[in-house]
């Protein structure tokens, strides 16, 4: 399990978990679960299109994820943003399926983009993983108070000069970057699960914001490590363990409270 060829997988899993656990705290606090689900899905056709065009996957992911941010910000002004977001989400998934179908690598690519290839990561995945694993938590910690304040009391935060729309855009932008980098490694569904599960569990176990953030990151780390170890030992997909352990952590936290 700790053989040299597995080392990169451990490092990447650790960094993705730190980013997802930190971003997840704000996702849950700001009630942005749907956006956290939509952004990796919005990035999915970007990766597929990049494959079709033969360009680096990161560019396709980044363009579509940031396009997703612009779309979410625009839809938020609509009367029924949830319904509109859901329709756009489904349309993007369909677009991704079309691009993959045209590229002639359908089933393997779909599996990799949705569920990740954590056991197949290599040295090339390390720089982007380090960038989000350290950069995203640092950026979010620097915005910790304004993001928390505007989530709890938007009017009061606005009275202190904080722009709700500006903070939304900043936060969604960081989510998009996290998704774009983590998606090829962990997969669209796993990024979302690692964001929401540990953070939702942490809020039941602590009363104060900073401990909740720390616990969210710690739980994400433990779940990612456990999932990787179990995937190695059983040969089953790591995504199955990430999802199951996240749900179990949330259930245990709810029952404990």
């Amino acid at each position, binding site marked *: 399990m700790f053989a040299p060829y597995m080392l990169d997988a451990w490092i990447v899993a650790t960094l993705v978990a730190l980013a997802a656990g930190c971003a997840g705290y704000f996702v849950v606090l700001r009630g942005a679960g749907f956006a956290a689900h939509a952004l990796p899905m919005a990035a999915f056709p970007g990766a597929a299109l990049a494959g079709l065009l033969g360009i680096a996957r990161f560019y396709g992911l980044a363009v579509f994820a940031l396009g997703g941010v612009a779309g979410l910000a625009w839809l938020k002004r609509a009367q029924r943003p949830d319904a509109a977001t859901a329709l756009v989400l489904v349309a993007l998934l369909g677009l991704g399926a079309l691009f993959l179908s045209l590229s002639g690598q359908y089933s393997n690519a779909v599996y990799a983009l949705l569920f990740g290839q954590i056991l197949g990561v290599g040295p090339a995945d390390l720089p982007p993983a380090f960038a989000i694993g350290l950069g995203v938590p640092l950026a979010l910690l620097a915005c910790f108070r304004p993001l928390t304040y505007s989530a*709890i*009391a938007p009017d009061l935060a606005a*009275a202190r000069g*904080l722009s709700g729309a500006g903070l939304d855009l900043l936060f969604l932008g960081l989510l998009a970057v996290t998704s774009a980098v983590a998606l090829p490694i962990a997969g669209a569904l796993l990024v979302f699960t690692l964001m929401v599960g540990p953070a939702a569990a942490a809020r039941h176990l602590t009363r104060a914001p900073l401990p909740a953030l720390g616990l969210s990151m710690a739980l994400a780390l433990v779940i990612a490590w456990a999932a990787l170890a179990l995937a190695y030992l059983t040969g089953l997909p790591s995504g199955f363990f990430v999802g199951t352990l996240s749900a179990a952590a949330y259930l245990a936290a709810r029952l404990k409270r």
Partner: protein
Amino acid sequence: MTAALNVEGLRVTLGGREVLHDVGFSLEPGAFCGLIGANGSGKTTLLRTILGFTSPSAGRVALGGAAGYVPQKLQLDPDMPVRARDFVELGLNGHRFGFPLPSRARRAKVEEMLAAVDAAGFAGQRIGELSGGQQQRVLIAHALIRQPKLLLLDEPLANLDLRAAAEIIALLRRVAKQGVTVLISAHDMNPLLSAMDRIVYLANGRAASGTTQDVVRTEVLSALYGYHIDVIRVHERILVVAGEHGAHGHEHVATIP
């Protein structure tokens, strides 16, 4: 003496309808003023215009110093990992970017403010789990921690039982005695009668201001509403009703419990 709040010829139009017509009044430092009017009379619009959230189409608002604001109600998730003391601290530094390093002086200031509003006993509880009266105390502490000269409260007594409402009024009276001007909106003036030394009465988007004796009179309110109004005083309470010549018959325009 410089006025704590001076409103002159204020006109506000929302959605093509003029909500406030030529509203003007002035409040001295330390005044305890009730902003009274039926639901939909423009109280919240006036408070939001004073705070700068809404732009007037004409007129001006001059503040003698910083203003603190207590909204009617926050939509608080009971599971949100934010304690009462965390929320009060956000009033102090929630707008600041940068790492949230602990500070003994800041913590002492928060605890002092919580004690001043008799909220020390539940400072460690999640704010979403507090009762309506307890939340109001925390919101008041949040507004006062920056030592404003003017405190604006939007219907803080709504949804409170009589005892909790009386306690909040006594607390605000103490605040006013310390030199902070208090402007509190309510649809029912009776709970405030013993405390307020000034009243701004809003009806049909117009305002009359002065002492309760000056304003809550048949002639003044009839002119404000545009039809005959009877003011009935019973057991130290005031009932304002449309009189027999009123355009709307015997309609209650302000109720008493």
